[in-house]
């Protein structure tokens, strides 16, 4: 996390150009710029600036937006909801599509079904999510008029009302990842299906469903969890593009607008938050390993 924070800090300070003169614009006099530099402690040595900045971040003072003067933390909090809904529902799409199809491919290995699933997965992994989003907006959203193509209604307006805005974005973000999940599920399932205990379970006369669901799938969950965790973490970052395509006012959109406006405090804040989510997701996945496989000890 410290490296992330350092990166976020240096990002602003390695930028060519002076933040103070950027805020004040072209009309500012030299004295004005100097006064603001003093106010922003820009004249202090880099290391001193760094430590004061870090201290403020830890205490929850993330500065104000250079553009709207709102506190960064409040801006981020306001936009967290759509981003969270989007990432969770995309994960849902990816897992729901990925695991059963992957299992099916493994069970029907070598058949036409397997080949078809694998080629779709290969293709799916190559599709840029934002392009898929655009095409869906074009044909499903506008062409068929089934679903809204942009915008967002907060959860307080009702669950289904909100979710209809997220169907297309979640597919756009989730589908390419389900391709990845399919491949991992298939290959680990193939490994597990060849083990002795699966053969024993079959020999005991357990139903096919029990063998696959309980014995095989459960034992291949660790690599699957790893890839799901990685997917989720990438999805959080992927919201940046997806939210732009579907005009969802979330944190990802905020990243893009703050880049455009050169609004560095907001950008720093968003990077910190996304990286924090990333780290937390990885931690949760590690903890889930223990739950899935009691043999794993830390």
């Amino acid at each position: 996390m410290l490296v992330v924070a350092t990166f976020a800090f240096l990002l602003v300070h390695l930028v060519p150009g002076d933040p103070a003169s950027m805020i004040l614009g072209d009309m500012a006099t030299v004295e004005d710029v100097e006064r603001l530099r003093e106010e922003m402690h820009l004249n202090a040595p880099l290391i001193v600036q760094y430590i004061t900045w870090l201290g403020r971040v830890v205490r929850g003072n993330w500065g104000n937006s250079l553009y709207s003067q709102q506190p960064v933390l409040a801006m981020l909090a306001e936009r967290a909801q759509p981003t969270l809904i989007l990432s969770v529902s995309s994960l849902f799409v990816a897992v729901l599509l990925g695991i059963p199809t992957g299992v099916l491919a493994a069970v029907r290995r070598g058949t036409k079904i397997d080949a078809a699933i694998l080629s779709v997965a290969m293709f799916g992994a190559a599709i840029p999510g934002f392009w898929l989003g655009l095409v869906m907006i074009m044909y499903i959203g506008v062409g068929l008029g089934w679903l809204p193509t942009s915008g967002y209604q907060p959860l307080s307006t009702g669950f289904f009302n909100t979710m209809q805005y997220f169907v297309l974005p979640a597919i756009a973000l989730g589908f390419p990842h389900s391709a990845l999940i399919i491949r991992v599920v298939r290959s680990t399932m193939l490994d597990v299906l060849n083990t002795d205990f699966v053969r024993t379970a079959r020999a005991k006369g357990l139903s096919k469903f029990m063998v696959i669901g309980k014995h095989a799938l459960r034992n291949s969950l660790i690599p699957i969890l790893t890839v799901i965790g990685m997917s989720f973490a990438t999805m959080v970052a992927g919201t940046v593009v997806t939210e732009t395509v579907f005009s969802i006012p979330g944190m990802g959109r905020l990243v893009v607008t703050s880049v455009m406006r050169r609004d560095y405090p907001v950008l720093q804040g968003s990077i910190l938050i996304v990286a924090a989510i990333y780290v937390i997701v990885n931690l949760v996945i590690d903890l889930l390993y223990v739950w899935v496989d009691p043999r794993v000890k830390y």
Partner: protein
Amino acid sequence: MTTLADMLREFRKSAAKAWRRNPIIRIGTIIFVVVLLVAVLAPYISQHDPLKMNPLNRLKGPSRANWFGTDELGRDVFSRVVFGARTSLQVGLSVVFLTILMGAIIGLLAGFFKKLDGPIMRIMDGFLAMPSELVAISLMASLGPSVNNVILALSIAHVPRMARLLRSSVLVVREMNYVEAAEALGVPVPRVLLKHVLPNCLSPLIVQATSTFAFAVLSEASLSFLGVGLPPYVPSWGTILSGGRQFMMQAPWITMFPGMSIILTVLSLNLLGDGLRDLLDPKLRKIAS
């Protein structure tokens, strides 16, 4: 002991074999070579100047004169897609080159010298704690849009992964007898690294290179699409998509063709990477079949 020349000879032999036996590699290579040819021969293939605007002829559908139609400024979409292949591959190749170069240096140092390992890898882990797209976006924010900056930003975003991978293979190779023998013979360390360690770490590196390439093409497109990548006048698949987005309803062809080009390129690279992995890693070959 395997030298680079041996490796290459071996590689050529197995590549020829793979070409005959492995349809995945065959398809991947063919598509990729086609895209590469299109990129190299761009000026000969396109009938129009990709930058020339023709306001009278804007947002026209695909026709014999403009195979992929025209965009909002009357530019020929086919020419732009063809020249876009050039930009995308240029970005992809440069990113792969820089990533391998920097990743190899960092990975070799970290893997070979135990003292450097800790500090270097902690920094790399820090970078890995951030999604690479976000690293690239934030770097672009401070660097400003241009082709070189996109290349730089994407390389920095991907180096940690490459370095980490190389370090783990170096850790294994370092313990090999031939490395010890070379050191005992008094071969200077840089030579040991380059001639004895690096060639034996190549196969995961090559596989990683294809996926970095695919990532680079995808990320360049999404960065440019967001408007933080290449400047809009440079024809690239991302910039065409970004421009075509507003006219999606009247002129879907602006969006469709660059998107399909991206899919085709990334698909070919993924196939190639998959095929190479099967080829270079006999352990994985069993699982995949």
